[in-house]
């Protein structure tokens, strides 16, 4: 078996006096789709934010694609990463946000082409051709020249997905991407992810409250509580025969008592 594409080793993370992760260990294999479920405040989003380098860590190591994310070798030792190292590491990663975070001053098309052009140095023609393909994939070809504020929540999030994909990350992080949407808009976003997974190999890490979706799409489901993985396994196992009491209680609360 290859080395895992993501590996957390004894990671510690605090916000002030609040300890989120005390001694956290976690692995994701290449092309694995992992759903993270659990109550709010359990550290689910923090996990993704640490990977996306939006939050630092207070101890331990994280490897992404065989290299240390938050540290770099320097004179035979591992020292905290500088911005150049982080810049290099971010090429592996893409993130879709709960609140979309589209750039409101750019058209949909420019939201998607800006980073490939400015960061990767891809020509405008090439970036726009790729944006057109991505917009087709998310079903928004007719919105290329609109501004994000003209779009519905579901459409915004589909642009968010296209924007992340435009950078061709090998690891896609989805942070509660349907939590800010009206219920009737959730499926149009989830369908995009369903198609994506069908068409291509992705390492995907998703934090979600859509239990049915997690069950359907994941190779593995991790139940998080208090900054630790309480239980993990194939979705069928977690959703039908959870072993831990806390998992059972959480799923009961979410899905009703029929599971």
């Amino acid at each position: 078996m290859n080395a895992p594409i993501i590996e957390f080793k004894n990671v510690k993370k605090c916000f002030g006096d609040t300890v989120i992760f005390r001694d956290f260990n976690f692995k994701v294999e290449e092309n694995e789709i992992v759903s993270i479920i659990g109550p709010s405040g359990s550290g689910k989003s923090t996990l993704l934010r640490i990977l996306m380098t939006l939050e630092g860590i207070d101890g331990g190591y994280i490897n992404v694609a065989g290299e240390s994310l938050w540290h770099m070798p320097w004179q035979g030792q591992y020292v905290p990463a500088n911005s150049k190292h982080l810049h290099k590491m971010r090429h592996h990663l893409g993130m879709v946000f709960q609140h979309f975070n589209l750039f409101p001053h750019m058209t949909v098309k420019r939201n998607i082409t800006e980073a490939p052009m400015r960061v990767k140095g891809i020509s405008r023609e090439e970036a726009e051709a790729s944006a057109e393909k991505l917009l087709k994939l998310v079903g928004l070809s007719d919105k290329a020249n609109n501004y994000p504020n003209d779009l519905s929540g579901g459409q915004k999030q589909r642009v968010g997905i296209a924007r992340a994909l435009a950078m061709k990350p090998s690891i896609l992080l989805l942070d509660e991407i349907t939590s800010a949407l009206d219920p009737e808009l959730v499926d149009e976003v989830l369908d995009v992810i369903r198609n994506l997974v069908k068409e291509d190999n992705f390492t995907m890490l998703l934090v979600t409250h859509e239990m049915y979706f997690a069950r359907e799409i994941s190779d593995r489901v991790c139940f998080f509580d208090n900054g630790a993985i309480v239980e993990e396994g194939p979705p069928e196992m977690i959703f039908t025969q959870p072993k831990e009491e806390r998992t059972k209680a959480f799923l009961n609360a979410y899905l009703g008592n029929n599971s």
Partner: protein
Amino acid sequence: MEFGEIVSVLLQGAIVTIEIVAMALPLAVMMAFSFGLIRLYAPAPFKQIAIFYIEFFRGTSALIQLYWIYFVLPFFGITIDAMTAAVMALGLNIGSYGTEVVRGAIQAVPKGQYEASIALNFTASQRLWRIIMPQALVNMIPPFGNLAIELVKATSLVSLITIGDLTFKAKSLADTTLQVGEIFGVVLLFYFVIAQCLVFFIRRLETHLSKGLGRGGIHS
């Protein structure tokens, strides 16, 4: 004195006032941006310098600043002509307020915008200039508009260092003709018109910059 003559004399003063505004405003904007960005992003000692500049020019009288630059600096061997002194004093004074406008507007851009720009791997300067600043500029325009009008009104101080601006001309006309009603009526109108021209340009700018942002701009 004929009303037409009064108007023509005051018009000369108004032109001087407009000249001062036209030079002090770019200086103020330049100071606001450079010190606003230093205040936010530069290492500690530079930040301290920025804070000193802001607090000093905000916290002391604009008239005394003007007197210092024009009357006191010559004692230290720095002689500055009246017009330059006026532009410097007003530009630095209004710029100190503008610094806080720039800082506030940048900090008001939602955190999610920084995070998205990090996730897309933009460099720090790309984040600032391509993602944050275009949105912050829209936030800055209304308070900058206020400051521009403040600047127009503050130019009347320069009449006290021998510059023949609108106020200076008005006072000397009033002293000689005693037609205070007409004179100061016209002066009020001139200041108002100058301010309104600025307001017009500021609104145009705001509408232009807020494209897509779904806020700002004046749509009646």
